């Protein structure tokens, strides 16, 4: 049990110390995560909505496939991106391996199916209500999707937050394509993994507590903004 106590102690000491390395790591974690979630939403929201409203052959199979991709193992995604970006790989000339960009790419691949699958569900539920109205108005596919995504935006926040959680917590992919290189691609989760492998369990746990605190902060912020937005505007 003393490990847990020590972990909290370490967490507080670290935060209070304002350790420059730690700040650098936190900043990179946030940058990579937020970029990846933004990209995943840019792809996943319309894709999920399309799966929800589309009436095309293979829609059921596509839905199962996207749902299944929520179970994409991070290590596999990491490997795939590694093989693409490695000097010997097809995209090697871009020299992206072991850069934050590579990490964003890997996380985007991981998070997009989550956003798309959950979006499909939310939008489908709303579509059940709006379908006849929108069809009767002669709305085009794109307009339907835009309408549904907009009206479901508060519910879709939770979807984005699920993606955020996944990206923030993820280590398997980013450690492969980022390499956990000190001062370059080291983020919170890879640091935690490193300290764990060093046997510095309470330090690792302390960092974990900071990461969860970060997650709470971001979530609180998002929900707070959502609250004010919902209160202010009803457009």
């Amino acid at each position, binding site marked *: 049990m003393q490990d847990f106590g020590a972990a909290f102690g370490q967490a507080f000491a670290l935060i209070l110390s304002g350790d420059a390395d730690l700040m650098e790591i936190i900043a990179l974690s946030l940058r990579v995560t937020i970029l990846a979630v933004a990209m995943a939403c840019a792809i996943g929201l319309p894709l999920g909505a399309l799966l929800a409203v589309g009436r095309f052959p293979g829609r059921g199979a596509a839905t199962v496939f996207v749902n299944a991709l929520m179970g994409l193992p991070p290590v596999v995604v990491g490997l795939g991106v590694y093989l693409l970006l490695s000097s010997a790989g097809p995209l090697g000339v871009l020299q992206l391996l072991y850069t934050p960009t590579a990490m964003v790419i890997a996380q985007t691949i991981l998070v997009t199916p989550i956003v798309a699958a959950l979006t499909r569900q939310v939008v489908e539920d709303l579509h059940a209500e709006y379908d006849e109205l929108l069809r009767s108005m002669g709305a085009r596919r794109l307009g339907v999707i835009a309408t549904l995504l907009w009206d479901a935006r508060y519910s879709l926040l939770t979807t984005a937050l699920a993606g955020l959680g996944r990206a923030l917590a993820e280590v398997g992919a980013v*450690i492969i394509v980022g*390499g956990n290189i000190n*001062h370059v691609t080291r983020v919170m989760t890879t640091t935690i993994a490193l300290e764990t492998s060093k046997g510095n369990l309470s330090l690792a746990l302390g960092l974990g507590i900071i990461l969860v605190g970060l997650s709470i902060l971001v979530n609180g912020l998002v929900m707070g903004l959502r609250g004010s937005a919902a209160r202010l505007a009803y457009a």
Partner: protein
Amino acid sequence: TGPSQAEDKFIVVQSTTSTQNSGLYDYLLPIFTRETGVEVRVVAVGTGQAIKNAQNCDGDVLLVHAKASEEKFVAAGYGVSRADVMYNDFVIVGPGSDPAGIAGGKDVTAALTKIKDSKAVFASRGDDSGTNKKEMALWKAAGIDPTADSGSWYRETGSGMGATLNASVGMGAYTMSDRATWIAFGNKGDFEIAVEGDERLFNQYGVILVNPETCANVKADLGQAFINWILSDEGQSAIADYRRDGKQLFFPNAKMS
């Protein structure tokens, strides 16, 4: 679950990844289990984590390669006694193009100096593992503090040997690996051994029984039986027999008393 005949007769060995990744255990342990009926469950993690796990009594036997830490472990009363099991050596591997021009050399400090001077990329495990400690000692011997350049030509991957090798191949960076892991490694690309044979690259593995007085749950009999076996002529020759690509990976050197 494991073989049913060994449902209760098993021990947990906390070990490093090199012994596991090189396939040694897959060869060695079935022999022991066949003879004694005792199943050996290996938890292969970083050396630091293995020692920490053993300190927490989550293993019966510790088998790692960081002699100083091991002796500290025993001195602190976590382990009963330490015995040498086997050794191999470290090698510096690097891309076939050999940007630092060190290939074929034997003097490791000279090679490291060349790497620094040419700013050729070097990947360090940077994880305080046995390998990492050895590497840092070699830099020190060469009079270099590479961590000052961390993030530029010197890259600390903060990962295990396998991950660091993958990263090295991906970046075209030199790195230091134990020979066993290197030989067994599947993603060599155009990489080759650049420096080997310096006696400072010696890599000793030791085995320790976790102290049953500090850890009541330790299966001292079974653990000791395993240690006795691995140090015995039979165990030692089994180690010597293990080969990959025709090469011997570990060299037994137990001094049974």
